[in-house]
């Protein structure tokens, strides 16, 4: 085995790849060779390193120096100064940014001491950005497949279900349904065939965690699926990946092949009677196919539309067989829970919502990108500590949690803990983990207009409240922004929103009005201003700014 003095981890997540990370990697390799350092320095393409907005990003170990916003000339500097001469290129080092000044601050402290990372707790992202996702050996070297091995050789299926139930892990796709409970329903069914579906049809705007988890640690998902299969008695797994996620599909397929070659998937896994195989299927871009029954319809070759429940998929899902549909992040939690035990998992996060949550931070926030933090962290910590605050030191207006289907929280909720229970109590949701930060330069009506437009576009057209209601919501919000809405229409907007939440067939239509209703509640003045023909932020074109009107 070759011992390298330095490892360079080049982020191979989609955002960085799109910004040219692969070209930089080739240049890096060429430069390393030019300096004849190929035997001393190893370059590894990893999954997401986190600060997507600052990509392309790479980290040099053992120093732990993260370089961001890289250009080809920067690579030349890094090779010459850091890799050859051992001097960190200070001006290229990624810095936690502070909102107050909006400029780079601080000194070259080791990356781990940056608030950006110190507040994070990496369970799901344990390997992400640390190993080569295309190497099963690197995954195994980090305790990979140990949990599967333990499960199939030392635990009964019931025991596995119990461990997951005891961990109080909740589904990370959005709804937060207890995973162990879901598994127990299917485990109890008798059927010649059961399925484990990994829901990787990530469509929530602003959410890209599942993509980066798949790209960064595909074996973690495979292991979780296999354990789920063992727990409920399923021998077939399917990963349903959003069609646009080319790199995820590629990495998952590669990982499945490797695991199959190693006998970790297939027949008689690890010499036991347990068989488990995984197929990859890709979706065609419909948001609604993230809803588990619509996903199943799509898998069966039908129009992507939710089914009537009951029966729930756990009892009658794909091809009418008992089917577990779990989110990527949920499944990535399984192996650590088996290895470390439910008590360990419950020690992270809050009492009712243990564990971590992967967030994708975006909008008016300095550190855009992927983070994993313990459940129950406050909004303020996310925005101002992990997220580095708001650019230009502007004021915080609101955070939309949970993606476009989530609610909007104004500044009085900054100290609220972020977990499933607390958020649902205030009309929002933790949802998929998208965290959209909006500063005080934005107009609430203008923002809602784009949210509502999204649902018009993504409603599948099956049930009345969603099909017709989403268009009507948009219509009234549009009218507000154009100054033609009436008081009675605002009343109607509330009534319609309520009816949609209560009576739409699936989560899409039920949650479409969430942002609107929370905004109507928390930003009533701004709506009133629009009714009076004023847009306080000066965004809505046809309206006057308040001060001018006075």
């Amino acid at each position, binding site marked *: 085995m070759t011992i390298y003095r330095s490892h360079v981890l080049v982020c191979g997540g989609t955002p960085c790849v799109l910004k040219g990370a692969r070209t930089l990697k080739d240049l890096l390799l060429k430069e390393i060779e030019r300096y004849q350092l190929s035997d001393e320095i190893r370059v590894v393409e990893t999954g997401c390193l986190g600060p997507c907005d600052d990509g392309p990003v790479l980290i040099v170990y053992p120093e732990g120096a993260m370089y961001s916003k890289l250009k080809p000339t920067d690579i030349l500097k890094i090779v010459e100064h850091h890799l050859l001469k051992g001097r960190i290129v200070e001006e290229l080092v990624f810095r936690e940014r502070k909102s107050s000044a909006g400029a780079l601050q601080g000194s070259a402290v080791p990356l781990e001491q940056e608030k950006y990372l110190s507040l994070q707790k990496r369970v799901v992202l344990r390997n992400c950005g640390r190993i080569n996702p295309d190497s099963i050996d690197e995954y195994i070297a980090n305790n990979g497949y140990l949990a599967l091995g333990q499960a199939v050789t030392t635990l009964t299926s019931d025991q596995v279900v119990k461990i997951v139930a005891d961990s109080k892990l909740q589904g990370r796709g959005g709804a937060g349904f207890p995973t162990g409970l879901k598994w127990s329903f299917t485990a109890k069914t008798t059927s010649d065939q059961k399925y484990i579906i990994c829901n990787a049809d990530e469509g929530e705007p602003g959410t890209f965690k599942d993509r980066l988890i798949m790209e960064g640690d595909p074996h973690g998902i495979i292991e979780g699926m296999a354990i789920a299969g063992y727990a409920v008695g399923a021998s077939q797994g399917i990963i349903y990946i959003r069609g646009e996620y080319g790199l995820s599909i590629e990495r998952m397929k590669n990982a499945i092949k490797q695991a199959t070659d190693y006998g970790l998937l297939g027949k008689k896994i690890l010499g036991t009677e347990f068989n488990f195989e995984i197929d990859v299927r890709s979706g065609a871009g419909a948001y609604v196919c993230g809803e588990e029954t619509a996903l199943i319809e799509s898998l069966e070759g039908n*129009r992507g539309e939710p089914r*009537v429940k*009951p029966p729930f998929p756990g009892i009658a899902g794909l091809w009418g067989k008992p089917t577990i549909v779990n989110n990527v992040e949920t499944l990535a939690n399984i192996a650590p829970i088996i290895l470390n035990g439910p008590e360990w998992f419950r020690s992270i996060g809050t009492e009712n919502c243990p564990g971590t949550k992967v967030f994708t931070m975006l909008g008016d926030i300095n550190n855009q990108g992927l983070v994993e933090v313990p459940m129950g962290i406050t909004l303020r910590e996310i925005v101002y500590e992990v997220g580095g605050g708001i650019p230009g030191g502007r004021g915080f207006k609101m955070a939309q949690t949970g993606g476009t289907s989530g609610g909007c929280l104004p500044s009085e909720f900054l100290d609220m803990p972020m977990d499933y229970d607390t958020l649902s109590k205030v009309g929002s949701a933790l949802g998929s983990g998208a965290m959209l930060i909006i500063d005080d330069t934005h107009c609430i009506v203008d923002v809602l207009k784009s949210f509502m437009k999204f649902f018009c576009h993504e409603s599948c057209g099956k049930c*009345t409240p969603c099909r017709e209601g989403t268009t*009507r919501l948009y219509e009234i919000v549009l009218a507000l922004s154009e100054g033609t809405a009436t008081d009675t229409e605002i009343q109607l907007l509330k009534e*319609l929103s*309520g009816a949609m939440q209560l009576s739409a067939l699936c989560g899409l239509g*039920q949650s479409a009005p969430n942002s609107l209703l929370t905004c109507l509640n928390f930003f009533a003045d701004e709506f009133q201003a629009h009714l009076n023909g004023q847009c306080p932020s000066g965004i809505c074109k046809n309206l006057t700014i308040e001060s001018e009107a006075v």
Partner: protein
Amino acid sequence: MEMVKVTVDNQQVEVPKGSTILEAAKKVGIKIPTLCYHEDLDVKAMCRICVVEVVGARTLQAACSQPVSDGMVIITNSPAVRRARKINLELLLSNHPQDCLNCVRNQRCELQSLADQLGVQQQRFRPKTKTKSPRDESTAALIRDPEKCILCRRCVEVCHQVQSVGAISPANRGIDTEIAPAGGVDLNDVACVQCGQCSLVCPVGAIYEQDHTERVWSALADSSKHVVVQTAPAIRVSIGEEFGLEPGQVSTGKLVAALRRLGFARVFDTDFTADLTIIEEGHELLERLNKGGTLPMITSCSPGWIKFIEHFYPEYLAHLSTCKSPQQMFGALAKTYYAEKTGIDPKDIYVVSIMPCTAKKYECGRPEMTDSGYADVDAALTTRELAKMIRLAGIDFASLPEEEYDAPLGISTGAAVIFGASGGVMEAALRTVYEVVTEETLASVDFKAVRGLEGIKEAEVDLKGTKVKVAVANGLGNARKLMDLIKEGKADYQFIEIMCCPGGCIGGGGQPIPTTNAIREKRIKAIYDADLGLPLRKSHENPAVKTLYEEFLKKPLGEKSHHLLHTDYTKRGKYPEAANR
């Protein structure tokens, strides 16, 4: 049966496990409003009109789909329920033309009734600005109006699940969703059989039959025309429903009286040619049995079925009897035999048929249906269209006297009446074939094994040592099952009756709305009541048919029969654009 106890609006009720909230509520006398729900179709739970509160549930539940559980507490009339129902209905109405007065379903519209029931009194949403696809009038039988469609998908369900045709499906998404033939083509360019079952289940005026009433009124007003009418067997047991009579009543005499008052010169009966069909088809069967022809032979009375086999099983057309349907036999004879007999120039004879069927409109326009030298049948009205004419003429149907059909094309037997129900053609054929082959009189003419709503029925008849195995299918989904058996070589039948519509013609696409399976059962019973009440119950005993052979046709399967009463079929295939035209 395991029972569960639930509370609906403070009333305790015990219902079988697995019952829906809708059923439980019905048991305590509460009729929860529904729209996409149809008692004979799979539950879709899409319109969200039937939502109710279930104590403990986060959201409202659709009563049509939600099964009750023991101890469930249901509230069907809370403010939240009323608000949600009303908003959902208002949403539908806001995307629906506001021109009820001009609609074919005015006052017979489920959406309209609901608006009244739920107290909609103003349009709160802005008028719709988006238009939908234009009206599709491409087929001979049906008109689709996407503007009126409220996307309940009952038509899709009946077309796919019941009929296994799949001519229409949801297209596009969200607010742009429409029910349409795939690929944005016209209905005439897909394998639609024009059975009209979609028009029966449509709650509004989004799918309905091509109107032939205007051309009939014109013909009636034209003094140069001799307008005769034929009534299909199934009309007499359904027309009364259009005038408030209970389903299951036989209104033959009133039907005849009404037609006479509308001004038809002669009121004839398709039953006459139904009897004739039995003679021709019976002999065709015997010939095939004796001479080793293609078996099993399959009936050809049902134009929807004919179009179905032409589209989906074109390689099996040789199995079809070559007999035209009774409607078309009637037309061909009216303009030849009847014209000769009465000395009326056939060009002046105008043949109207009253059919339980939309596909008959298509059938009478098929290019080969002109063997008389003219269009054999000029207009085919559905039961609903006839009712419309009777209403327009101000005729009080219920108080009409009972009148008799005109001779000779109005003379028929009970065997012809039962053509109206699934199994009837088979039973009528067996009554005749048995007596022709065995030269013995049947002890009982009732072949009960082939009666009823069941999808596929079988029977075996012993014709003096020769065993004939027969099958009967109603609804095209069941027809498909039988055809697949034939395809796999697993069907050892000699004779098969297939009717396009569930229950046969009594459940046809042109029948009164509603036509449900429960109503079908009642009409079937009426059909057999009518059969029982007739003095003659075997086709070969029909004196007018005997005279027809003596005076005109000479013998079954003879040259004249071959020319006027038999036909051939067209291979169309599943993607029929060219073949359909």
